[in-house]
C-alpha cells in the first residue's frame, strides 16, 4: 500500500483519476493549485487507486493524505 500526501498547502483544483481505477507509476491522480501554479500529484506506485481522500475545491495542508494505492 502506498500513501500519497500533499507536499504543500494547496487548493485541490482537479480530480483526474477515480477510486477503483488501475493506475501506473507516474500517472497524474489529482492537480493541486498553489500560488497560481498547477502542481500534478503523481502515482508513486502501480496498482489500484483504493482511496481518494480529497475533492475538488478542498484545501490541503502539507502532509495531508491525498490518495492510497494498493
Amino acid at each position, binding site marked *: 500500500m502506498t500513501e500519497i500526501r500533499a*507536499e*504543500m*498547502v*494547496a*487548493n485541490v483544483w482537479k480530480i483526474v483519476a477515480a477510486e477503483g481505477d488501475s493506475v501506473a507509476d507516474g500517472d497524474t491522480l489529482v492537480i493541486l*493549485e*498553489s*500560488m*497560481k*501554479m498547477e*502542481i500534478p500529484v503523481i502515482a508513486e506506485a502501480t496498482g489500484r487507486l483504493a482511496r481518494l481522500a480529497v475533492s475538488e475545491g478542498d*484545501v490541503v495542508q502539507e502532509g495531508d493524505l491525498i490518495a492510497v494505492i494498493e
Partner: protein
Amino acid sequence: MPESVLIANRGEIARRVARTARRMGVRVIAVYSEADADLPFVAEADEAVLIGPAQAALSYLNAEAILAAAARTGAEAIHPGYGFLAENAAFASKVIDAGLTWIGPPPDAIDLMGHKISARNLMASAGIPVADGGAEPVHDVDQALAVAVGIGYPVMIKAAAGGGGIGMSMATDPERLRSGFETARTRAERFFGNPSILIERYIASARHVEVQILGLADGRVIALGERDCSAQRRHQKLAEETPSPGVGDDLRERMMAAAVRAGEAVGYRGAGTVECLVDRQTGEFVFLEMNTRLQVEHPVTEMVTGIDLVEQQLLVADGAPVSFDPGAVRRTGHALELRVYAEDPVRFLPRPGSITGWLEPSGPGVRVDAGYAAGNTVTPHYDPLLAKLVVHGEDRAQALARAREAVGSFAVTGLTTNLPFHADLLNSAEFASGDYDTSVVARLRP
C-alpha cells in the same frame, strides 16, 4: 490632485503605491480579502474595506465590490497596481463612468494591447519589428501545424490573451506542437477565458529587454530606459537589472525610439512597458507585448533615474505635468532587483506558510518593497511574491556586491524562500559576467 485613492491590489504593490500617495498628501484606502486581513498594507492604510473571501475571483477581481468600496469611502481615484484588474479595460471604463479618476492608460489602449495578436499587428504597422508568426489566432491543431511549417521549427506557443508565461511552451517538432497546443488552449481558456493561440518563431538565445515609457498629460510619450529581465523560471521573472549588460548605446536608442512609437500608436498615458526580445545571434530586437500598467520591476528604473513612477502616474492621471524635466532625464549607475518568493530555492515549487521572523537588509543603495512582516501567514491563494530586494550601485560590480551582501543579511524564518537561489545566481559566473540569456536559470538549476 485627488483627495483620496483606493488601491485595488494587495501585498507589496499596495504598500508601494500607498507610500507615494501618503507623501503627496493623498488619503489611502485599501481593499482586502479575508485571507489578507493581517497584512501590513491593510493596517497601514487610512481606511480599509473587506471586499470578499480569499478567492481572487470573489475579491480582488470583483469589480462591483471594489466600486462599492470606493463609493462607500468617498474615494476619488483608483490605482489598480499590477495583475488582477490592472489590464481590464472594462473595469477601467467602469471606474471612469463612476466619475472616478482611473490611474492608468485609456481603456482603449488597454484593449488594443491586451491581445497579443492585435498588439503585434498594430506594432508591425507602426514600423516596430515583430517575430515571424501568424497574424491571425489559430483555433485548432491543424492551423497551428500549418503556421509552424510557414515559420519553421522551433516555434513558441502562446495564449493570445495571456500573460505571466501561463500556457506558454516551445515546440521543436509537430508532435510537441500537438501536445503543447492542447496544454496552451486548456490553460488559456481557464486563466484568460479566451482559447486563442499565437504561434511565433522561437529565438534560440534571447534576452528579455523591456522599455519603460511614460505618456504625459500633454500627449507626448517619453522613454525612461530599459530593464533586462532575462533571469526567469517558467517564463516568470526572478531578477531584473538596468542598464541591460547585453544592450549597447545604439540598440538602446533604437529600442527606446520604437517604444515611444508604440506608445504613440495607442495614445498612451501614464506608465507602461514595451517588452521585447533581443536575439543574441543577430543583435536585433522584436516586440513581444506591451504591459499597460506599472510593472513589478519598476523600482530599478526609479533607482537609476531618481524618478518616482507612482508619483508620475498620479500627476498624469490628474492632467498635471510630471515632476521632472522630460527632456533632461539622466540615468546614473546600475540597479538590480531580486524577487523574493515563497518557494523552494531548488525546484521553485510554492511554499506557503507562516513567517516567524522577518529581518530586512539595509544600507547604502538598498531598498526593500515588502508585502509581509513577521507574524504574517502566506496563503496559497495568490502569487508567491513576498518582497522585492532592490539595490543600486555606481556600476554593475558595486550593485552585484551590494546585492550579495543584502541577500546574505535578509533573514526570513518559519518559511522557505528562494533567497538561497538568489545567492547562487549572484555568485554564478554566467550571471556575474552579464553575458546571459533567458536560459540562465535553467542552466543553474538543471
